[in-house]
């Protein structure tokens, strides 16, 4: 008889909620951005007034999931782990044999990029939504940063999806919150949940 696979809890409901809410808002921002910005899509979709409102509201809300998530101890612990890069992360990034903890160095870099990108897009987005106090030079500068960072975000977003789709274990972790213990031991051997297991 086949033994039932053992599951480890990787994310609590709060951690999943932060991820999913951030992802949903990010997708709204990217889709509405395409409707406002890419000439062919803008010509097909139109409706500039309501789409602009949706883009601005979703953008302003983008930092909220993380701020609310701070109430969760599990989420704060994730942020602590994501922030720290140790010897195993340097090995992982150099392609050497490495034993990642709960997050590998790629996941850590992605998290830092997303956090930085949300803050920069929030700041420049506020400048563009309420341009009153800013001279033209800074408005154009804010447009420049907002435009080009969008392209970087799109590339990172697609890369993030690509890696997630290729790893069913990781995908199960972020959708159900639990992972197969053997998958965890292979991919995240230094994760405390694996070590205690």
């Amino acid at each position, binding site marked *: 008889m086949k033994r039932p696979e053992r599951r480890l809890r990787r994310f609590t409901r709060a951690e999943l909620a932060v991820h999913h809410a951030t992802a949903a808002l990010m997708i709204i921002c990217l889709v509405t951005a395409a409707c406002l910005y890419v000439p062919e899509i803008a010509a097909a979709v139109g409706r*500039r007034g309501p789409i602009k409102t949706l883009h601005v509201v979703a953008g302003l809300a983008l930092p909220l999931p993380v701020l609310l998530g701070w109430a969760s101890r599990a989420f704060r612990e994730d942020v*602590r782990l994501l922030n720290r890069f140790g010897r195993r992360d340097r090995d992982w990034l150099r392609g050497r044999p490495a034993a990642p903890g709960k997050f590998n160095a790629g996941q850590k870099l992605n998290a*830092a990029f997303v956090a930085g990108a949300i803050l920069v897009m929030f700041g420049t987005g506020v400048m563009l939504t309420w341009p009153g106090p800013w001279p*033209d030079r800074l408005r154009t500068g804010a447009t420049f940063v907002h435009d080009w960072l969008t392209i970087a975000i799109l590339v990172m977003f697609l890369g993030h999806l690509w890696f997630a789709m290729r790893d069913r274990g990781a995908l199960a972790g972020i959708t159900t919150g639990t992972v197969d213990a053997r998958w965890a031991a292979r991919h995240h051997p230094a994760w405390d949940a694996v070590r205690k297991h």
Partner: protein
Amino acid sequence: MTSDDIEADGSGAPVGRRIVLGMLGLGAAGVAVGAGLQSQVNRALAPIGGIIPAAGGFRYYSVVGDVPPRGERDYRLTVGGLAERPRTFTLADLRALPQTRLTRDFQCVTGWRVEDVAWAGVALPDLLDAVGVADGATAVRFRSFDGEYTESLTLSQARRRDVLVATEMLGKPVTHDHGGPVRLYVAPMYGYKSLKWLGGIELTRRVVPGYWERRGYDVDAWVGRSNGRSDEAT
């Protein structure tokens, strides 16, 4: 692997925080110097300007879902309100009026500008003379046949020779995406005054703020002297 076994998860340098702070610094620097960089990027990408949206040129803005195309057979411009001889113009009627040509820049309030755009059509004062301005009229209201967008000018603004009921742009009939077959071109003002898909002109007793003006834009939209901007005049 021994070091990995010893090192606790979550030990090491706060690289994540450094990345976030670095991005904030880069973002602030980009806001400070981006205006200069963007114009260099525009020049560098000019040959493929049609491919990359950020590389300059016109951008397409519409406030409705889709606009029914109108052409030679079904296009009508109704001019009424406080007019002495209200009437409806076809494209042929507009061509029969005196034609005005001018080449001026198009400046959007969001910052982009297209230089030296050739426009042709009927100067608005000539059209107003054709219908006669009745007593009491102090403003002109424009309606787009998209069913939503409106704009207006004071009567003295509307009598300027550089305000055009444009039927040609860049040497060709105004295309549908650019607001054709007939659009307004208000040379000295920001692009939102240059209403697309012009369907109606009404002489009114007072200025009625337009679509974006009800959403916070200045009613008098002089380039470089409104909306808190200081662009060079067009």
